[in-house]
């Protein structure tokens, strides 16, 4: 108090509810409690901005599969994708070309040289245009291929209009790799299922008649992924974008949960504490019983009851915090009820409703910001816990708890980033809120203030 009220805050009356919080915040900004409060406010503000502008900040849409799965953070990974064809096209004069997908199976066979087969629809999963290498993987069956017979392969990047120079594949019984990287300007467009084709032509040194059997044909593409700050998750979504959008989900659930908890718990506590009597006892019993039960489990039961969705999960979370607000409000009311100003109000004949709302409620309200911060931090943890257990919001919503549970299965393979970062932001936000709660408690609570003096 010694350094006096900062002049810039004098437009808020010192003894108004807001003033009782704002003035100490500025006056005690150099104490540990003040610093903690301001750090908390800062963190909360940053998260609010993120939630509001997630669409603008996020580099990718949160629900899209934008890249290869499980790409580590902070790197451009070399992804090698391998895909066999799912369709063949005219002139289909080879027999059973579908079977060429399987090794050791009945391959695609041609019994006359110069027969041609086009294979297409290689559904390659490529997300960037920086393609390092395109190779064909060809395996000719040793038993189904006569000596002197072989195949020529070439590729088309434009749906079969132009073809690259053919390359002979003479290896039989072993996998042959044909590098076609230089055959075309490869990109996502030219490797798309509609554009990319592989043509296999039966060739022979010894005469037209004779068999050639193709056991396996695949296209292998090595490409460079996009650089991701936090990597990609097990489905190939950008972790950073999902973390940003998850802020929205988390804050929304928190706001709904805490708002309803205050709007039920506060009036109930006010009424119960002021009235007293048997009703008060009953309410205290109910609230204490609910308070003693694991909140997460209660919220889980109710979440199942209400169904998924942000609003419903928010309401489920509410149930945990109603007893908290009830208890705090009630205990504040019990002490405020005995204050001199309440007695004075009663003496001048103020009706009970007026005493309750004008004199007690407004003074009890000061205690709410502290409880708000604490319960908000807890609500975020609970919401994340519910989603982690599969009782919260539904996939594919961007949600921290959901992302953590989806990533939990791959942690045994050392893939840490898709669970580490969502958890980290939970920790940062909840630390911010609990710093705010603890700091405010030290600043506002007059008992603690007296103790420190």
């Amino acid at each position: 108090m010694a350094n006096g009220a900062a002049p810039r805050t004098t437009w808020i009356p010192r003894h108004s509810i807001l003033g009782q919080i704002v003035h100490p915040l500025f006056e005690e900004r150099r104490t540990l409690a003040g610093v903690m409060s301001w750090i908390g406010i800062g963190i909360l503000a940053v998260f609010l901005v993120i939630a509001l502008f997630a669409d603008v900040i996020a580099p990718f849409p949160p629900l899209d599969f934008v890249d290869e799965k499980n790409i580590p953070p902070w790197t451009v990974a070399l992804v090698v994708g391998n895909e066999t064809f799912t369709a063949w096209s005219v002139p289909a004069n080879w027999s059973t070309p579908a079977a060429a997908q399987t090794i050791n199976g009945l391959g695609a066979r041609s019994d006359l040289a110069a027969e041609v087969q086009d294979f297409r629809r290689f559904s390659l999963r490529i997300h960037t245009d920086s393609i390092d290498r395109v190779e064909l993987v060809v395996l000719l069956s040793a038993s189904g291929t006569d000596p002197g017979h072989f195949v020529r392969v070439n590729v088309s990047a434009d749906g079969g209009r132009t073809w690259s120079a053919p390359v002979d594949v003479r290896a039989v019984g072993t996998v042959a790799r044909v590098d076609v990287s230089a055959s075309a300007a490869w990109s996502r467009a030219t490797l798309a299922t509609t554009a990319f084709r592989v043509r296999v032509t039966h060739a022979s040194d010894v005469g037209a008649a004779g068999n050639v059997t193709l056991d396996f044909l695949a296209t292998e593409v090595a490409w460079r992924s996009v650089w991701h700050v936090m990597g990609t998750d097990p489905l190939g979504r950008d972790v950073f974008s999902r973390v940003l959008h998850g802020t929205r989900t988390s804050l929304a659930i928190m706001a709904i949960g805490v708002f309803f908890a205050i709007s039920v718990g506060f009036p109930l506590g006010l009424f119960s504490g002021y009235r007293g009597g048997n009703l008060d006892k009953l309410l205290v019993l109910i609230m204490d019983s609910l308070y003693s039960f694991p909140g997460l489990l209660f919220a889980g039961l109710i979440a199942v009851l209400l169904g998924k969705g942000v609003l419903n999960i928010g309401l489920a979370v509410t149930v945990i915090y109603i007893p908290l607000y009830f208890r705090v409000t009630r205990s504040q009311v019990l002490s405020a009820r005995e204050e001199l100003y309440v007695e004075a109000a009663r003496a001048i004949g103020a009706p009970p409703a007026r005493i309750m709302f004008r004199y007690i409620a407004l003074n009890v309200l000061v205690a709410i910001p502290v409880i708000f911060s604490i319960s908000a931090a807890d609500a975020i943890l609970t919401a994340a816990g519910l989603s982690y257990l599969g009782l919260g919001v539904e996939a594919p919503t961007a949600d921290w708890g959901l992302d953590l549970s989806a990533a939990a299965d791959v942690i045994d393979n050392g893939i840490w980033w898709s669970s580490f970062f969502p958890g980290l932001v939970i920790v940062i936000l909840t630390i911010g809120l609990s710093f705010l709660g603890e700091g405010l408690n030290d600043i506002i609570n007059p008992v603690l203030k007296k103790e420190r003096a």
Partner: protein
Amino acid sequence: MARGHSLLAYAITRLVLAVPMLVVLLTAVFMILRVLPGDPILALWGGRTPPEAVVEDARRELGLDQPPWVQYGSYMTGVFSGRLGTSIGELYRGQSVWAVISDKLPATIELAIGSMIVASLVGIVTGVVAGSRRDTWIDVGIRLYGTIVWVIPIFWLGLIFQLVFGVWLGWLPPHGRWTGTDIPPQVTGLFTVDALLAGDLSRFGKAVAHLVLPCLTLGLVLSGFFTKTVRASMLKTVTADYSEAARARGVPERRVVARHAFRNALVPVVTVLGLQFAILFAGAVLTERTFSIEGIGQLLLNSITSKDMTMIQGVVVVYAAIIVAISLVVDILGAMIDPRIRL
């Protein structure tokens, strides 16, 4: 004699007060379950439409055809006479709810006790250190630890421990209660105790190794609360008259902290301990999921997803009974330590 008598009186009063608490919890669960969407009988048929007669029979068997208050009455009398019924879910259909629960309970008990040990050890040590060195950098550090560790998501910490100690370093098993089939002969169901009873130290070690990561995870998160409480009460006892008196007599500071301040600082910790168990059990559900431990938390989750009403009721009853019992014990313990509470 007089002291013992009043303690007994307190314990009885407290016990009587615990009954309405149990009733409120059970009523809340009953109400929640009766409005739960999805017919449990239809859920059993998994999307197919069962014949009308079968549904009627099943309803009659479960008592679902009766009015709600009759159901409520039989539910309450059942619970208080110890009959929890049989499961109606997919996984345990027809099995006794109590048998399934008592099969899963030891895993949760082991986890809960282990985490409480970790939490109280870490919490008391940090709290005492911080409280006796007020406003030093150690104190600030420990206060930060207490605040931060409290808001770390349990499952996240668990995943990190799994990754670091289970996957990267390979020191400890990252999943489950046991790997392999050489489970110690079942007496209590607690693997650690069973192994000791069988006199098998290597299997005891194995059971403990599986417990370390889950208990560390849950224990560390819970320890923040102990840290804060112990620190706060140490601040009072270190400067209390009896501590000052000891200092004036020339008792060394270490001894003042250890003998005078520390002992008295534990009294409020015991009284707030009871509140910790609700949080402990909620945390145990998350820990069980993370470390794939088949405890009653997992059981409750599975019952919720399969709409196994009787199983949900059973698990909630067990939870409520444990919590009420623990808070009872803790309260009586507090009254034993601090006679003022009894007044």
